[in-house]
């Protein structure tokens, strides 16, 4: 069976007159239907750019995108703007980080849901209205009927994000992309939104790709986690295994710098140095300058993905590669 998402050697560069930023430098992954992948990384690691590439939403005039990106059988790299617009919102849709600014301030919530439905389906105004109401109930917005006529500024941050989710789900997409959807929310609201997303994912059978820098969020929602650094997946694996026993020194550093159950009583560590400038990508392992285990071989070439056990992989020369047969 064809995976829902199929990405091979995805490269994204932002080209301006002064500089070229290599935001994504060769990302490969597949996502099965109903699977949840969490892309983990710090600011500027290319995680949001990777996510937006899955609906070709990076600014078109500046972006150079190469490689293979197939979502639900559609080739997103070569398809026309017009058929792209048909795919967006119906096959794949996105929830954004800032519910404050991601909704149009001068149109009601109801109208913003209705226009999405009517863009993709031939449906009467009344039916669209009814669907919009059902969607608001689906995302558990209290007094949904009244909220249809509300403007975004009349809702709290959590309700706004629920409305955003309702818009994203309005045409039952096969793939839901979530770009740090809980980062801008209060901690108590964060967990509600996460639980809601997980429930909706199970009920509707969507594939979900979730971008976050929050390990706790990843642990809560993901089946699989990919850790991103300098535009590459440096480690990928099932969420529990990766959290328990990270392979890549960067992933180890990331876990060591975060409060979670396993490190009670110990001091948090930090990763020395700063991420590389993506206008000049190093030839070797991008993490080498900050790595405690760096060897001359690390600087020679970008380490290939090595897989010590099936389902796990890391781009580090120190990781043993036992699964030549399964990697193929």
């Amino acid at each position, binding site marked *: 069976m064809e995976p829902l998402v199929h990405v091979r050697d995805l490269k994204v560069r932002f080209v301006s007159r002064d500089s070229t930023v290599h935001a994504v430098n060769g990302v490969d992954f597949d996502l099965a239907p109903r699977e949840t992948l969490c892309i983990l990384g710090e600011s500027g690691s290319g995680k949001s750019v990777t996510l937006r590439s899955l609906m070709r*939403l990076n600014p078109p005039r500046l972006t150079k995108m190469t490689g293979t990106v197939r979502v639900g059988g559609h080739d997103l790299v070569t398809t026309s703007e017009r058929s792209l617009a048909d795919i*967006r*919102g119906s096959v794949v849709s996105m929830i954004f980080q800032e519910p404050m600014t991601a*909704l*149009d301030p001068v*149109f009601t919530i109801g109208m913003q849901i209705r226009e999405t439905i009517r863009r993709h389906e031939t449906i009467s105004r009344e039916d669209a209205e009814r669907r919009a109401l059902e969607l608001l109930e689906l995302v558990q917005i209290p007094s949904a009927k009244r909220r249809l006529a509300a403007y975004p500024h009349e809702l709290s941050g959590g309700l706004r994000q629920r409305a955003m989710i309702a818009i994203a789900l309005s045409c039952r997409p096969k793939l839901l992309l979530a770009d740090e959807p809980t980062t801008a929310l209060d901690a108590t609201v964060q967990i509600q939104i996460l639980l809601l997303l997980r429930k909706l994912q199970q009920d509707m059978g969507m594939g979900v790709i979730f971008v976050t820098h929050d390990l706790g969020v990843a642990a809560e929602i993901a089946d699989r986690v990919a850790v991103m650094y300098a535009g590459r997946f440096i480690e990928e694996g099932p969420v529990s295994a990766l959290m328990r026993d990270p392979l890549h020194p960067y992933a180890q550093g990331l876990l060591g710098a975060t409060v979670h159950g396993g490190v009670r009583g110990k001091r948090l560590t930090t990763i020395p140095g700063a991420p590389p400038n993506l206008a000049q990508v190093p030839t070797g392992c991008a993490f080498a300058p900050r790595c405690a285990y760096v060897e001359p071989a690390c600087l020679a070439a970008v380490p290939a993905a090595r897989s010590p056990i099936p389902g796990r992989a890391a781009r580090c020369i120190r990781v043993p590669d036992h699964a030549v047969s399964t990697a193929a």
Partner: protein
Amino acid sequence: MIFYLIRRVLYAIPISLAVSLVCFMLVHIAPGDPINAIVPPDAPQAVVEQIKHEYGLDKPLPVQFGLWLYQVSQGDLGRSLATGRSVWSDLRPATANTLRLAVTASLIGFVLGLILGGLAGTFRGTWIDRIATTFAVAGVSIPHYWLGMVMVILFSVTLGALPAMGAGPGGATDWAWDWAHIQYLILPAVTLSVIPMGIITRTVRGVVGEIMNQDFVNTLRGKGMLPRNIFLHVVKNAAPNALSVMGLQLGYLMGGSILVETVFSWPGTGFLLNSAIFQRDIPLLQGTILVLALFFVALNLIVDLVQTALDPRIKRS
């Protein structure tokens, strides 16, 4: 909404009162004696006093203001010192002429400004943007009395295509929307439209550019909306800002066309003001300024109400 409307209309009353006070004071602070303009220099003092008394100019200023305000509230703007005719009989056709000129000029300016500004804002940083911005800068920078004279030389003197002055073959009073009259309107209207064109272009360019950079436009693209759907969202977001600038511009054109009306001898309020100033015709001056100022107040009121209707974030109660 209805309470907001009533409150907003009530606010306009004290504003209008203040405006009329300022009009009155400004005219009286200005140097020059109106009586000197209408009596011969060698007239005996008794005659001068007599005329001052007839026009009420011998009373203290606050009393004069009170009397004037009372008359104005009765719809009587007084009599012109220069002609002896009632101010209203001169002011009414002049206001109508200025309205025609200002509305035509702003229509030209607004349409061009909206198109140029919308294109420039959408295609920011491209050659389209640069061309539109050049037009906008030229529009605000070129002095319009100079442009008016160039237009007269080009289209009236050299080409002989359009009349250079006046408001129609029969003068000021018999306006009709036919070619015989409209051809008189073209040159002054185009000349007058250049400044609002430039200002609207710049405003709309800024507003549209800012909106296109907002996150919600990305959301719209992300849910598959087509460019024409997105256009609708941009228009509704840009409208309140663009409208407020357009309202102000129309207000300026109503009062600010003195130079253009003088260049083209267009018999409007600017023309009237100009002659009233030179003749120290105080009642005419006060009446004209008052009418123009009230237009401005009314325009602001309309803009406020339309803005409130368009932008749900402006509090209505």
